[in-house]
């Protein structure tokens, strides 16, 4: 594991055309990393995420994606993701290929990828049109009982990107709170980038805590607030008001572009992004925490 700046981590490890999973189920969504990918102008990405959320609405609206694999594509508790809709319905800013699953199907797919199995299985997709429109969804006959069980191919992203609370100086990463499929997505990927709220001397991780050892982490970067406007348990809450506001910001193409120009493309760091939105608090970082730039 190498501790580096986010800018360097994205420059070195994210390549045009890759299949990338930026996971985090409502919690710990790696917004800072996605913004840096947009700033560096990556193209033709195959985006993978159970819930595209605002993060992929932004990446898709910025024109970085050729395909998306997902299972629920709304603005949670608010409504539509307008940029995702515009890409699917109108092909703007470019057409996007849609590979659609259920949550349980995506979970099985990541778990199979992490386990190096060719497919995952589940009692799923029964009676739905999802299995009709997604040719990846198939079935096997159980060799023991003769039952038919749904299958999904293993998900093996080129790269998974996560946000977590803490890393230590050896790059061991600690996550807590709602976990989504982050561990599975991390273990399924060929490379793993993690951004963290802070770097500490000792994680003080309770036994059985979710720790990703430094030797499976390709690169780590310290980015306080890196999950905003989602949240980091014990650091800051989800900005539900921002999720509501995004509905208007993203509804119309020009307003979306102006917002992205000002808040994402017009800044160089996540710290500047947070200051621009007026949400960065003045509280000094915890003792021992490293804050880049």
């Amino acid at each position, binding site marked *: 594991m190498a501790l580096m700046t986010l800018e360097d981590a994205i420059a070195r490890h994210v390549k045009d055309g890759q299949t990338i999973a930026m996971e985090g189920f*409502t*919690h710990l969504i790696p917004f800072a990393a996605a913004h840096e990918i947009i700033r560096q102008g990556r193209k033709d990405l195959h985006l993978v995420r159970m819930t595209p959320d605002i993060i992929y609405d932004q990446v898709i609206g910025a024109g970085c994606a050729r395909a998306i694999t997902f299972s629920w594509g*709304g603005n949670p508790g608010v409504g539509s993701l307008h940029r995702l809709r515009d890409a699917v319905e109108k092909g703007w800013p470019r057409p996007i290929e849609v590979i659609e699953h259920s949550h349980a199907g995506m979970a099985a797919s*990541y778990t199979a990828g992490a386990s190096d199995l060719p497919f995952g299985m*589940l009692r799923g997709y029964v009676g739905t049109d999802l299995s009709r429109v997604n040719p990846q969804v198939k079935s096997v006959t159980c060799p023991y009982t003769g039952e038919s069980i749904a299958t999904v191919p293993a998900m093996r992203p080129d790269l998974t990107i996560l946000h977590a609370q803490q890393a230590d100086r050896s790059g061991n990463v600690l996550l807590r709170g*709602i976990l989504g499929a982050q561990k599975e997505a991390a273990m399924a990927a060929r490379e793993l980038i993690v951004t963290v709220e802070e770097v500490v001397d000792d994680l003080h991780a309770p036994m059985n805590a979710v720790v990703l050892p430094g030797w499976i982490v390709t690169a780590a970067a310290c980015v306080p*607030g890196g999950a905003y406007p989602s949240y980091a348990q014990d650091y800051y809450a989800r900005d539900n008001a921002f999720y509501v506001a995004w509905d208007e910001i993203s509804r119309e193409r020009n307003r979306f572009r102006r917002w992205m120009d000002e808040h994402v493309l017009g800044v160089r760091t996540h710290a500047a992004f947070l200051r621009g939105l007026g949400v960065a608090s003045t509280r000094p970082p915890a003792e021992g925490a490293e804050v880049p730039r």
Partner: protein
Amino acid sequence: MTPAWTPDEMLTVAAARLLWDGCVCFVGIGLPSAAANLARHTHAPGIVLIYESGTVGTRPRVLPLSIGDGELADTATAVVPLPEIFAYWLQGGRVDVGFLGAAQIDRFANLNSTVIGDYSRPRTRLPGAGGAPEIATNARQVFLVLKQNPRAFVDRLDFCSTAGFLEGRGGRARSGARGAGPQAVITDLGVLRPAPDTEELQLVAHYEGVSIDQIVQATGWALRVADSVDVVAPPTDAELRILRDLHARTRAAHGRPVRVPY
């Protein structure tokens, strides 16, 4: 005279009353979440709420906006990984009631939350199925909440995201789906339940001040009406007070500015 409660409040109260103390309920966000938490604050303090974000036995003080708000984790008995919630808890047979909403429903309680129009070139791209397909086929039974109008209660779904009774008359059982399927559809006008033989939804109850004809008109197919139709008791003062308090606490919490320590 203006009624003392809104249709949404009546819907939420009627849905909450279907849940029982000790019931293990896999909860969808929005109206199901409001109803399940109202049940917890009234007649079912021991209800076990599971959200697909992996929170088991959660007791949120305010309603979550998203399925994964920190409030759900802070107040949970256990927070488990998402693959585990679907595999061990739902598929493993631990869930009594799947409690869901949807954009569209047909006469056999099949649901569409995916597209309006053709899938490959949709007129309206909806969010998608999320956890619903497996919740609806692995929970012991399913309750659905939707607002009733002809755009939501349709003769033909453009897309089947989640199976109800499929084509009816045992279609669901033949498909291999487990669980009894949708046993109640609670709307803002009344309650529908599947007929025992055909499995087609029929009107079994309406709210005060709502006529049967009004409900038939709000349905995009020729709605069958049960031989005897009940009138749902209006919300009690206690139910309304607790629900309104819950919404007021929620509004206050969601409006609180977030500060990111930097």
